């Protein structure tokens, strides 16, 4: 394992050749095909806050800083990472608190509030990193609004360490809501739940998050979250009640517990392969009807967490036919070695992607076989 602590050391390590697997706290080690031949680059030597001025809504932090530290820092100022990132330890096992902010960005981790507030890619303003050529470079900036040059921040987010090693990143932060309230509908079918969530999101109620759990403690639960100023939440809750009929209200702690369960797909069985499928929200019921298995809907149906033993090819075909795709998140090592983690792309797109990867990593230093 390599432990660079400066950009120069990292450049040298990468220039010396690969395959290299970039790693923060290892919270997502269990995602992807096992890659025993790759040397691990521990990025936690790049840690600490570089600049944080809350009213500017901008935070610059080194990539190896633990996510929990970053979230605590912004929470102290009444702010949040609005894309709702989370620690995969809860999903994949392992000790909590190890996930780093760099790993969160590299994996494009966004939680339930992504539905309304945007994904990780929408909140990364800029970064410094080292490409597979062993060259340090900068992209984006440290202000909230910028269109100077290509938006490489979007490309790096969710690239799973295959383009460059991020050493420092600048995030947009936002004020945390003064209050959170979760409203519930009970007993809806998948179809009715998706329709109800769509109606809620199409109203002026400004729903932050919307999820459907078909078997939460024995009950089918459709949850809508409202965030903001108390008087505003009261008014928006009335809007929803007019639209959807009687709604049960959860207090903040019970609501937080529910959303944490959604974020981590906690209600699904741990002994089956776990998939994360992105489909057009209206197609979510069709998707789960086609695949079987146990599931829950986040993002109003746009994200389906699916625990299923069904043939991976069938799951991916079902997703593709509906205009979606499926990522294998949790499986035993043998299955991960046999089934690609990321959904295969059509040939012309796959070729373009490969050229873009070579634009950062011409010699395949970061091609470990994991993805």
């Amino acid at each position, binding site marked *: 394992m390599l432990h660079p602590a400066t950009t120069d050391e990292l450049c040298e390590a990468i220039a010396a050749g690969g395959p290299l697997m970039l790693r923060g706290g290892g919270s997502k080690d269990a995602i992807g095909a096992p890659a025993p031949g790759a040397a691990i680059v521990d990025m936690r030597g790049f840690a600490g806050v570089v600049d944080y001025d809350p009213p500017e809504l901008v935070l610059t932090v080194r990539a190896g800083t633990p996510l929990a530290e970053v979230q605590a820092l912004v929470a102290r100022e009444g702010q949040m990472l609005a894309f709702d990132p989370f620690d995969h330890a809860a999903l994949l096992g392992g000790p909590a608190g190890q996930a780093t902010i760099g790993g969160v960005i590299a994996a494009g981790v966004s939680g339930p509030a992504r539905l309304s507030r945007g994904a990780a890619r929408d909140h990364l303003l800029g970064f410094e990193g080292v490409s597979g050529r062993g060259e340090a470079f900068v992209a984006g900036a440290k*202000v909230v609004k910028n269109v100077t040059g290509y938006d490489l921040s979007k490309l790096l987010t969710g690239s799973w360490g295959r383009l460059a090693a991020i050493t420092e990143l600048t995030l947009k932060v936002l004020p945390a809501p003064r209050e959170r309230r979760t409203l519930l509908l009970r007993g809806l079918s998948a179809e009715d739940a998706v329709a109800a969530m769509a109606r809620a999101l199409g109203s002026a109620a400004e729903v932050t998050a919307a999820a459907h759990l078909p078997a939460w403690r024995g009950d089918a639960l459709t949850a809508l979250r409202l965030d903001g100023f108390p008087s505003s939440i009261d008014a928006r809750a009335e809007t929803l009640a007019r639209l959807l009929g009687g709604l049960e209200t959860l207090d903040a702690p019970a609501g937080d517990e529910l959303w944490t369960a959604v974020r981590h797909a906690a209600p699904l069985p741990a002994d089956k392969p776990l998939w994360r499928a992105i489909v057009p929200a209206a197609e979510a019921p069709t998707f789960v009807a086609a695949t079987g298995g146990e599931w829950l809907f986040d993002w109003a149906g746009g994200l389906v967490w699916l625990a299923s033993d069904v043939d991976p090819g069938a799951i991916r075909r079902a997703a593709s036919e509906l205009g979606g795709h499926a990522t294998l998140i949790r499986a035993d090592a043998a299955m991960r070695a046999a089934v690609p983690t990321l959904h295969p792309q059509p040939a012309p797109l796959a070729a373009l992607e490969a*050229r873009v990867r070579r*634009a950062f990593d011409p010699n395949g230093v970061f091609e470990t076989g994991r993805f």
Partner: protein
Amino acid sequence: MSLTMPEPDARTLARRDEIVAAMRAIVSGEGVIDDVDGLRPYETDALTAYHQLPMVVVLPETTAQVAAVLAWCHANKVKVVPRGAGTSLSGGALPLADGVLLGMARFNRILAIDYADRIAVVQPGVTNLAITRAVEDEGFYYAPDPSSQIACTIGGNVAENSGGVHCLKYGLTTNNVLGVELVTIEGEVIRLGGRGLEPAGLDLLGVVVGSEGLLGVVTEVTVRLLPRPETARALLIGFSSVEGAGQCVADVIAAGIIPAGMEMMDRPAVHAAEAFVQVGYPLDVEALLIVELDGPAAECSHLRGEVEGIARANGAVSVRSSTDDAERAAFWAGRKAAFPAAGRVAPDYLCMDGTIPRRRLPDVLARMRELSDHHGLGVINVFHAGDGNLHPLILYDANQPGQLDAAEAFGADILKLCVEVGGVLTGEHGVGVEKRDLMPVMFSKADLAQQQRVKCAFDPELLLNPGKMFPELHRCAELGRMHVHKGQLPFPDLPRF
């Protein structure tokens, strides 16, 4: 004018008739223009200081035609400049003498609207405002609202990652586009993103949005629709100092409030706007702030109280609150008329577009006044205060010898100042030709080389919109060999074009 464009290729110019004939074989009738009178409307965009007649204008109507045009140009090494409505303020659609101008105006249909999934699928030549017009009866709108929204097209918005006055709360184009159909320079049709909220692999859509027509030609766009907020109210707040206004903006955000829009005008901008539209702006202030709040009525009235309190604590000398939509529109009318108002104060103006960390605003405005004296030209400032995006309007007279050069030098100094204080060259107008030669102020050679390698992955022959965005045009093979150590190349600069 100081702009240098790539030297036209004599062999391509000599093949003009053959190229026009090839285009006519793909697009029939009036879709190919090659007479001087017909080309004239395409010689410039909204950056009118620069003109160049294109070799030929092609106006395709189908994706297959776009693919055929690009494949032919690729096979024949002919450059292509894509164009939407031609409202770019950075010269993004400036033609090339040896290039095909690919106008996308005929792609003007809305293909599908899905209210349940809150998306619209539109062709790239549909105007920004037409999307909102198509869905407003159902209570929806498309959020990014560049000031040219009545004319600018969604395809151009994708190319430039356009913004508007509501960006801080609702994001730029990139945050509101879910997918595109893109034709590569080879003529291959690919889909990036789609109706879902995340791409399957690398986020290529993210890098295509804002790529200024250098990576491909967009033939279809899927955008996110938002439900129209229940109410909107605007506050008009006057300050006796820029510092007070700037602190008010910071304190509003520190209080956890993200207004739908937060605009600042300096004293000269207030006077110019009021003289132009007479909406009752206070004239005895150094800075005027417009704060728009939206959401349920209860939220707007609650936040109005909070914002007013913050404003008074920062020395506001006047506060007015809109009581209805007509009054709110009047508050905005002056701000939205700032550019034409500048046009009445001086014969010509250059609109700049830097972003700064907001905390540096008083300092930057003071330095700008010094630069104004130094260059001998006036400047008025409008400012997307919430996100730190400055629009200084430099006033000049193109008929006075030397004034355009002075205005450009002044503009360059302003943008260098923006970068010096931690900001950027462009917040929403794009680099184009206007800020191209300033890119090294913000990026090292290594940074620019990495961006150009992405360009090479899409367009290895550098045929799409060359001469924009990058100050030096490196051949892709050179970029592959080039090793940049600590931001410096190991060999001297390659000649510029």
